[in-house]
Each structure stands twice: as C-alpha cells, then as structure tokens.
C-alpha cells in the first residue's frame, strides 16, 4: 500500500518559507529509527521537533515546551501513549494539545482504547511519514474536522 502524496508542500523546498518556524511538535517513541525518520520529515516541513524516548519524558516535554501537536507511540517504557494521552486530556492546561497516537497494534481494541483515552487521531505502523506531516499541517491550519472547534481558538 502506498499513499499518493498530493501535497506539494511536502516537497523539500517548501517548508521553511511557511513562516511556521515557531510551531513545535513533540515526537515520543522508544524506537530510535522512528524518532529519526519523523524528526527528519517534520524538521524538513519547518517544525521544531522535540523528541522523547518514553512516557515520562513525553509528559515533561509537554508541560515545559507546550507543543501544539504531539505524536505518541503507544508502546513506550515508563508510561504508555494511552496513559500520557489520558493525562494530557485530563489536564486543563494541556487538554488542547492535539494528540496523535502511533501504534503497531491495529486491532479495534487498541483503537477504541486510544479514542477513549481522548486521542484526536490514531495512526498505525507502518505509516507514511509524509502523510503524518500532511495531517499535522492540516491540524495546525485548523482543517482537522473532528477537532476544529477545540484547536480553533489557538490557531488564529
């Protein structure tokens, strides 16, 4: 399966001209290669990328750096992505953070668990890095339909 990425902004030349330099994204995963690949494409897309290798690091980064978007791997040491997501969505200061869950588990149970924990989006591995970039752009631009209201205040 291959996604056809129609978004021209994903091209290598586009990112930094958007002026979205201040937008930061947290990527939390214990797999170093996934961190590496996501960081690479997000940085190329013009975002500031913060990395976390486990749930605790992710929470700490979320509190200190207040990224508007975070990508959380579900299977992480110390705290799972679900747990981090639940904490984020239960915290008045953090609850507006857009949470995207990443997991290798594609089963419905994991998906429902993910949605119940309050996640805004759910991605299964293997994923397409460019598609994630595209989604994050859409979210930050206020185009993410299911969460538009919530994130809308901060977008503008």
């Amino acid at each position: 399966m291959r996604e056809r990425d129609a978004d021209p902004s994903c091209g290598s030349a586009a990112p930094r001209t958007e002026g979205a330099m201040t937008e930061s994204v947290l990527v939390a995963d214990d797999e170093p290669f996934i961190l590496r690949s996501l960081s690479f494409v997000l940085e190329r897309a013009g975002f500031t990328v913060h990395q976390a290798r486990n749930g605790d690091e992710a929470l700490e980064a979320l509190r200190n750096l207040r990224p508007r978007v975070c990508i959380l791997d579900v299977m992480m040491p110390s705290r799972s992505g679900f747990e981090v997501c639940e904490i984020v969505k239960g915290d008045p200061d953090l609850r507006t953070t857009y949470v995207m869950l990443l997991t290798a588990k594609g089963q419905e149970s994991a998906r429902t668990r993910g949605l119940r924990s309050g996640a805004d989006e759910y991605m299964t591995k293997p994923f397409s890095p460019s598609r994630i970039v595209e989604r994050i752009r859409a979210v930050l631009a206020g185009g993410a339909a299911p969460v538009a209201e919530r994130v809308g205040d901060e977008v503008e």
Partner: protein
Amino acid sequence: MEFRVPPDLLAQGSLLTGVAGLALVAWGAPRRSSPAAIALWLGFTSLAASGALGLGSVPDLDAGWSAVLLLAALLLLGLAGGLAVLEFRSRARALLLAMSETESLRREVARTTGINVRLEDELREFRRQLQAGQGARSGQLALLESTVAHQRHTLEVAHEKLRRHRALFDGAVEGIVFLERETLRVAEANSSFCRMAARTPDDLAKLSLPELFADGPVRPGRADLQRSAREARALPASIERSDGHVVPVELTVAAVGDASEAVLFAIVRDASERRTAERDAERAVVELTERTHRLESAAASHEERTRNLEAANARLAELQERKDQHLTAVAHELRTPLTSIRSFSEILLRHEDAEPEIRREFLGIVQRESERLTRLVNNVLDLARIESGTAKLATSEFDARDVLADAAATVRGAAAEAQVEVVVDVGASPRTLRADRDRVQQLLVNLLANAIKFSPAGARVEAVVGGEAPGGRVSFEVRDHGRGIPKEDQARIFERYQRVEDASSPARAGTGLGLAISREIVQLHGGTLGVESAIDRGSTFRAEFPGLVEARARAAAPPPPRPVPVASAPAPERLAPLPREAPPPPRLPTPQELDLMSTTGTLPPLGGR
C-alpha cells in the same frame, strides 16, 4: 291260719325291714337306678306295705292281703338280688374290657416311649380274680372302675400328646436324632434324618453320630457336640451318606432332663441348600463389590478423563490465547523494522536533495532493518517449526568443542563491534555429542550473541564445554559480566518477546525470540537450558545435552509426542495426550495481509486452514 303264730312280730318286722330297705334304697337311689335297684325298691315297698297291713289287721284280719304283699315283697327282693348279680357281672366285664384297653394303650406308650406305666398291684390282683371268675365286692369294683377310668384318661392324654409329638418328630424337615448319652450312638432318628443320611433306622442304630460325619475341616467331635449342647450353638458339619455323597449340615445338640441323666438329641439341618444360597449370596456380594469397584474406577477414570479433558481444554484455550498473543507479538515485531524500512525508503525517495551523509545513514538503517526483519522472520519460522514438531533433527555425532569454536567464530564480528572479548575454553579431551549440529551451533550463537549484547565494552564473554565422563552428558556454559538479570525475570527471559533489555540501541535490537528458540532447541534434544545470574555480576547460561548412550536410545525410540510448551504455567502432573495431529504452525501473514493489517488494523485468522 297257723301261719300267724306271731302275727304282730312278723308284721312289725316286715314294716321295719321295708321302711329300712326303702330308706337304704332312697339313700342309694341318686347313685344308681339300675333294674336291680328298682326291684329292690319295689321289694322293700311291698315288704313295708305287708308289714303295715299286717299290723293294721290284727283285730279283724285281712291276712290274705298281707301275705300276698309279703310274698310279692320276697319275690321282688329275690329278683332284685338276681338283677344285682347280673349287673355286677356286666360291670366286671366292662371293667375287664376297659382294663385290657388301658393295657394296650399302656403297651403302646411303653413301646413308643420306653416308659412303662405300671398298673398297681391291687388292680392286677383284682383283674386276676375277675378273670378267674372269683367274686369281688361291689364297692371294690366301683373303686377299681374309677381308678381304671382315671388311668385310662391319663394314658389317653399322654398318648395323644405322644401322637402329636411323633407326628412332629416324623414330619419335621430337620433331622432329629436321639443319642445315647455315653456312646453317642443313635438311639432314634426321624425319617428326615434317615433320608438325610440315606440310611435305615436299623443301620443308624449301629452307628454313633460322630461316625456319620464326613472327614473335612468341620468334623465335630464329641467335645464339640457337648459344647454345642452347653452353649446351645449350631455346629457346622458334613454327613456322609451311605451312597458316598456328603451333605453339609448344621446341627444343634441339646440335652433333655437332669444333667446326670440327660438325654442328648441333635437337630440336624440340611445346609446344602442354605449353603448354596449362602454361596450364591457370597458370589453375588463379591460380584456386586467387584461391579461397584468397576463402576467406581470407571467413574474415577471418567472423572480423570473429564479432568484431563478440562486440563487439555484449558491448555488448548491457553495455547489459543498464546497463539493470538504470539501472532500479535509477531505482527508488532515485524512492523517495527517494517516501519523503519518504509519510512526511510519513502524519505529517500522524496528527499532526493538530502545530504549524501544523511542519505547514506538512511540507507544503512534500511539495510539493517531489513536484516533484522529477515532474522525475525527466520526466527519466527524456526520457532513455529520446532513447536509444531515438524522440525527434524539432523542428528549426527560430533565433537562439542568444534561446534563451540564455530559458533565463537560466527559472533567474532559482533564481538569486535561491541568491544567484547570472547574466550573459549574447550578443554583437552573431545566431548562427543549426538545432536543436530546446526541447531546446536544456532543455540551457541544465540547464547554468545546474547552475552555480547549485554556486556559492557571491554568485558569478556567466556564459553566452556564441560560435562561428565566421556559418553555422559555434555554441557555448554556461556558467561558474561554484564549487569545480570533480576531474579524475578530469570524465568521470563526464555519466553518469546520478553526482552529484559531496553532496546534503546539499534545495535542491540534483538528479535525477542533468541532465548525462546534456544530453549526449544535444547528441549528438542532432551536437554535443559537454564540461567544463573546475579545483579552486576553477570549471567551464566548453561545448556546441558544428554550423553551419547541416552541420545542413541532416544534416536532408537521415536520421541514422545511433544507437550505443548507453555512457558509460564507449570504443566499439570498428568496430561491427557493432546490430539495426535499437531496444531498447524502459525501461518505468517503474507505481504498483502501485512499491508492490510497496517490500514485496517485487523489480523488474518489464525492458522493455515
């Protein structure tokens, strides 16, 4: 008339005699009213009347009537006397008859009982006199009559009783024998006993009771009989019939009469039918008991089967769950390198402008992750083959030292990269091992790679071949000086995908299957794999293989059906054999399915049906 010389005296005498006679008759009348008595009464009446007439006719005489009456009186009195004699005679005859009847009764009683009822001497004498025709007094006669009647009644009662008892004696189903006290000879036996012993009463009379008993474990002797009489307890015995058959009996001995003159008798019960019934009952009880036992054991085995089935069911359910978990884990493990490969290849395609170093780095990642994926797939397939029992051991006999050396050479590259020194001590003498050489090498490579992975740079990994005397068990030990494995994790590490390490470094990313496969390999050979570890001191993995003799025996006999490995649950003591057909190995998802999995998040059905 001349005749009336003393007419007054005669008349007075007649009157007095008549009145006295009447009074006498009146006194005797209630007792007898025989013709003689009537004649006597009439005589005395006439006499009294003639006397009265005589006295009244003294002055003017009617002597004729008086004389007629007197004459009649005399005639009547004479008649009365004659009648009385006749009556006496007939009574005497009747008495004689009664006496003879009594005598015959007496004789019968004497015959049947041996009891001689003696007639009194007086009676005998009287009878003799009567028979001789000598006279006897009437009073004596009456007394004798009553005596005889009484005696006769007594004898009749006795005779009736005897008759009844005799009927009882003869009609009894039980044999009854009277025994002579001292000799225990059979004095009398009833017909049942005669039938029982198949002997005539005359035959029996020649024998004593103990002589009638057949030889055998229950042959009562004299003392037994006497004890039975004392204790009124039944004795088992066997009677030998005249025809040679032996009849089992049960006899009760009793004594009649005073102790000194007691007569013994025995009641003998034919026990053959009863014994048969008893034997039948015993057999029935035995059979019933047996059946009960069979039923119980059937119930027990049924219960056991049920338990086994339940255990098997539970294990199957567990196995199913484990398969699900396994597949989920496999999918997870496959997706991680797959995700890297896919991400970086996409990045390389899209970011052609990326710096050459970065492109090289990403290509390197793709290559390493491809290798990891290959290893993973191979391991999963290996494990599936081993677990399903389809893994064939290509057994041969070789020197264990050689295979360890080969394994050490294989990991040399990894060791150098990790700056770990691998020291192999193979000893001086060869250790012959009968096993699948490639599998053993795979095991040793796994253990060595594992040790290298957890060794800090500059540390040593030691590998040793050891074991018992030549032909005995052979063991390999691989020791590292890493950080060790916590006690609580030591059992878990042999389970699949149970990595104790944090796979933070790509170089250390294992498949999570190495130790599980290693243990399967050792167990497949009938050996054991264990670990000893202390925190911060390192771990020693020890694989022990059966010696040559045992291994050859194993090769000769087909291996038992492999128990389904359940890593964490201890196997039940007794497990019903699982269905002969081994469960099909978990089918690996096809690339299309993997693709499908990534998007739909559903898994293909288990197994290759």
